[in-house]
């Protein structure tokens, strides 16, 4: 966010606007009218186009049932949508520090709790746009079956829980990171670590220990739940226990953001100044 754009905080605050809403509006303008959000969405749409084209035309992948094609596309959308929100969130505080705009922001009459809340919500807008981009691809791949609504509904619920978790995680890391590079690196490393279990061989995912491992990880649990509904045609309630860890992670980290933000949103990366 540029320093010259800090003034609207004060102007809007004087008009009686809610602090977090003012920060959110300013962050949204910065993200979307600044072009960064659109550029990320453009890359996201290219990725989804490639996957949709491959599952629709490649003979080796073509044996996939329609349900599996929809599931693959939806899971990639959730994963990459989560990545986008994490990247945007990891830049929120540490990025402002490096650009030298955090000091100006802290001087505005908006509480620190509201600042981080507004920034978190702005980062989440990337997921909502990513989901909107996913809709036509899922519709195309799943048309003719009665799974499009279910797939989109499941994708929205699971994707939103994971996006809230990842965006909150990104903001928390950004609060404490000494530099923007550290914040982005740690966030990406954690994301890769969370996704790593999806690459385990199926034999390693069997048994109570394997299932517990999958259930405890919000990413693997969420993706598993989507697969059960889209591929196995299970009802929403049948495997709802798999949503426990995404829900807990989303709530815990979303609560942690304003709590930690009020205390640690400082110029020096979490160090007392």
């Amino acid at each position: 966010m540029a320093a010259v754009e800090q003034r609207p905080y004060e102007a809007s605050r004087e008009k009686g606007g809610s602090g977090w809403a003012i920060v959110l509006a300013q962050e949204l303008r910065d993200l979307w009218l600044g072009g960064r959000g659109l550029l990320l969405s453009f890359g996201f749409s290219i990725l989804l186009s490639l996957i949709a084209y491959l599952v629709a035309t490649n003979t080796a992948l073509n044996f996939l049932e329609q349900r599996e094609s929809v599931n693959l596309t939806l899971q990639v959308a959730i994963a990459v949508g989560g990545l986008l929100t994490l990247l945007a969130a990891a830049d929120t505080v540490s990025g402002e520090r490096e650009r030298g705009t955090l000091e100006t922001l802290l001087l505005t009459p908006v509480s620190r709790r509201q600042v981080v809340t507004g920034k978190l919500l702005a980062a989440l807008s990337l997921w909502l746009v990513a989901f909107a981009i996913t809709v036509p691809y899922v519709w195309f791949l799943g048309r003719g079956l009665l799974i499009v609504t279910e797939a989109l509904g499941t994708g929205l619920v699971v994707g939103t829980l994971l996006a809230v978790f990842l965006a909150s995680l990104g903001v928390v890391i950004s609060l404490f990171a000494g530099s923007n590079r550290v914040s982005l690196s740690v966030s990406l490393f954690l994301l890769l670590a969370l996704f790593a279990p999806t690459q385990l061989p199926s034999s390693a995912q069997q048994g109570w220990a394997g299932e517990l491992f999958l259930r405890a990880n919000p990413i693997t649990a969420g993706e598993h739940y989507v697969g059960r509904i889209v591929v196995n045609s299970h009802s929403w309630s049948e495997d709802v226990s798999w949503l426990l860890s995404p829900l807990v992670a989303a709530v815990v980290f979303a609560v942690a953001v304003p709590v930690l933000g009020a205390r640690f949103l400082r110029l020096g990366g979490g160090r007392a100044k």
Partner: protein
Amino acid sequence: MSRLGSPVALLGALVAALLGALLAVPLLAAQAQAAGPSPRLSVTVDRTEISTQLGGKFAFRSTITNNDPASVSGLIAHLNVVGLRDGVYVDPEDWSSQRTHYLEPLPAGGSTTITWHVHAVDDGVLGMYIAVLPESGVGLPPATSPMIRLTVAEKQTLNSGGIIPLALGIPALIGLLTLGVRVRRGRQPGR
């Protein structure tokens, strides 16, 4: 004396032969027992021709019958899939999640039926069969079922023709929007 040598030698040879035979018989018997007599098994399948489409899932049954007068234990049934045309790559692991069944002991004249669930992941003409082998049947041929001829037709699961406008249209739309925003920002004074 010279004539005594022959009967003694003959007796010695006879004793040696007898001892050798006494030692060799149990040894040979032990070897035969290790290999085990081949149980008289028959393996049948409920059909020998299956046609499906790529990605299709189907099931067939095989029945293993023990024709031996004694019960048989330690039998293992295994599903095999083979491409009947050169150049067809087949990885049987992809075709069935459970290709091996360890069977309960079969009484004399008894039989057991196994249902095999198969997922056709390659198109072409393929052969499938069930092999049953006793776990102690080293060196003995397994009992096999008749071959099932499987014809898997290529299947286009999606209308790929419609994907191109979508795959190009959405990125183009977002790209244009991005470009428009950037141009608009560039025209704003003070930027």
